[in-house]
């Protein structure tokens, strides 16, 4: 297996407060890694540093051997590192189908910048991929509805769907199940896992629900006050003394 993502010694301060303090995380392709920790522990800052939204003060991040610190979100994304958001970032004025169509165009437009609009309009291949994602995430019923008309949980699915449509190499999901009703969380994660099953993506997801974490993660990285407290298999990490005291709160 090769290293999909390798972050070494990342530190970042905001107005003197250390949001990341020597964070090192390495993920192989195909791995499912959960990032856990209290609010403000540095999980989202980590994702923001990887995806180019925030530049670390020190440290290095490589993806398949390529340094990505200093790249813009656009450049990072074009290397195959996609993300979803805690609050779904979708195009509210567009229909679901149009949202996914825009998402898929991102890649084809990059490959062929002067793509003929007519070709794009009638491109059966991309329409098929849109339909496939629509089906996988069970959104087909709402394909011609505007995003502003669908529920928060559906937006969440759409958000994740848009991040997965272009076969990401690394996929970062920021709290994919927040806002999803608790009895639907497993179904939701099953859909996500299923959708990614035929891809070799390295997946990092931020999660607060330990049942989800135990069930879906190959490995857990525990954040606490900007540092990595533990990095191990779920049962081992969750059994660690300081993790129980600071994070899961069951000392």
């Amino acid at each position: 297996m090769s290293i999909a993502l390798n972050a070494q010694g990342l530190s970042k301060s905001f107005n003197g407060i250390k949001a990341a303090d020597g964070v090192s995380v390495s993920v192989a392709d195909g791995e499912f890694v959960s990032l856990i920790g209290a609010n403000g522990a540095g999980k989202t800052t980590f994702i923001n540093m990887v995806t180019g939204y925030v530049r670390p003060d020190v440290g290095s991040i490589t993806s398949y051997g390529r340094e990505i610190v200093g790249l813009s979100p656009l450049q990072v994304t074009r290397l195959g590192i996609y993300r979803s958001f805690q609050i779904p970032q979708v195009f509210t004025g567009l229909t679901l189908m149009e949202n996914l169509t825009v998402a898929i165009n991102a890649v084809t437009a990059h490959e062929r910048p002067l793509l003929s609009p007519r070709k794009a309009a009638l491109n059966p291949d991309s329409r098929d991929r849109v339909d496939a994602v629509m089906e996988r995430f069970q959104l087909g019923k709402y394909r011609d509805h505007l995003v502003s008309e669908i529920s928060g949980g559906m937006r969440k699915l759409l958000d994740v769907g848009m991040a997965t449509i272009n076969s990401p190499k690394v996929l970062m999901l920021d709290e994919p199940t927040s806002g999803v009703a608790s009895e639907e969380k497993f179904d939701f994660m099953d859909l996500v896992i299923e959708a990614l099953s035929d891809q070799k993506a390295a997946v990092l997801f931020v999660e607060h629900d330990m049942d989800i974490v135990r069930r879906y993660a190959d490995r857990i990285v525990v954040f606490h006050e900007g540092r990595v407290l533990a990095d191990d298999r779920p049962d081992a990490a969750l059994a660690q003394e300081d993790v129980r005291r600071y994070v899961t709160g069951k000392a």
Partner: protein
Amino acid sequence: MDVFLTILVDGTIYGAWLFLIAIGLTLVFGVMKILNVAHGALYAIGAYAAATLVGGNVIEEVAGFWALPLMLLGSILVAVILGPFLEKFVLRLFYGRDEVVLLLVTFGVSLILEDVIRMIWGVFSQYVAAPYSLFGNVEMGPLYYVGYDFFVVALAVLVGVATSLFLSRTIMGKIVLAVIHDAEISRAMGVNVSRVYLYTFTFGVFLAAVAGAFTSPMLAVTPSIGVNAIILSFAVVVIGGMGSIGGAAVGAALVGLSRATAINFWPEAELFVIYAVMAAVLLFRPQGLFGEPAQRRI
């Protein structure tokens, strides 16, 4: 050496004129986040008000003595009549919509006001000659300048300093600063934001009218002075940073001096130079010299 003196003096005078127009524009933008395109038309109305009160038909001796107070009175009248009317019955209907939508609204207001000007004052040039000789001539080496031009420079300094002091030293001013910083939080803290908007807009109209009234002796008053004023003062405000009074002062000086330089060495490029300066500043500081960078949030 004389050339540089000319450029310095011409540039300062022109910069003062620009600053007088730009300060109201930048203040209204700072508080209300509205780029008021009608500011130019309001400036023109101020100039026409001055023309009516102290212009051509008025006996020169009387006008000479009363000219300045009358021009101030005209500006106050313009502000009191048009400010509350426009804010309450036009702008207020569109609050909360996109910045660009409000830009369109003030553009519409500007179109209406231009026709109103034509209906009231006609299309021919008017001159406000009487006050121009009030301060005699000033000799500077081999050059003569009209004293009134320096009065306008002094007025620009006065208006700038007074407005800054008002904002930093008075309670009302501090409330305005709070609204500039964050209107939502100010509202939550109990500030009557709509009243602040009303007063600010009216004061902005007053500043536009003052600029128009007191600079009217320096130029021919025609309906098109408004659009020139808004385009140039927009450049000034952008250079200085939208919403910053100090920025407007620096921007006005910069534009004034570059224009004066251009006129002396390359007159055809007059307008071009102004926008070249703007482009150069924005290349290095997209938010303007004194503007705060806009944050994009997830």
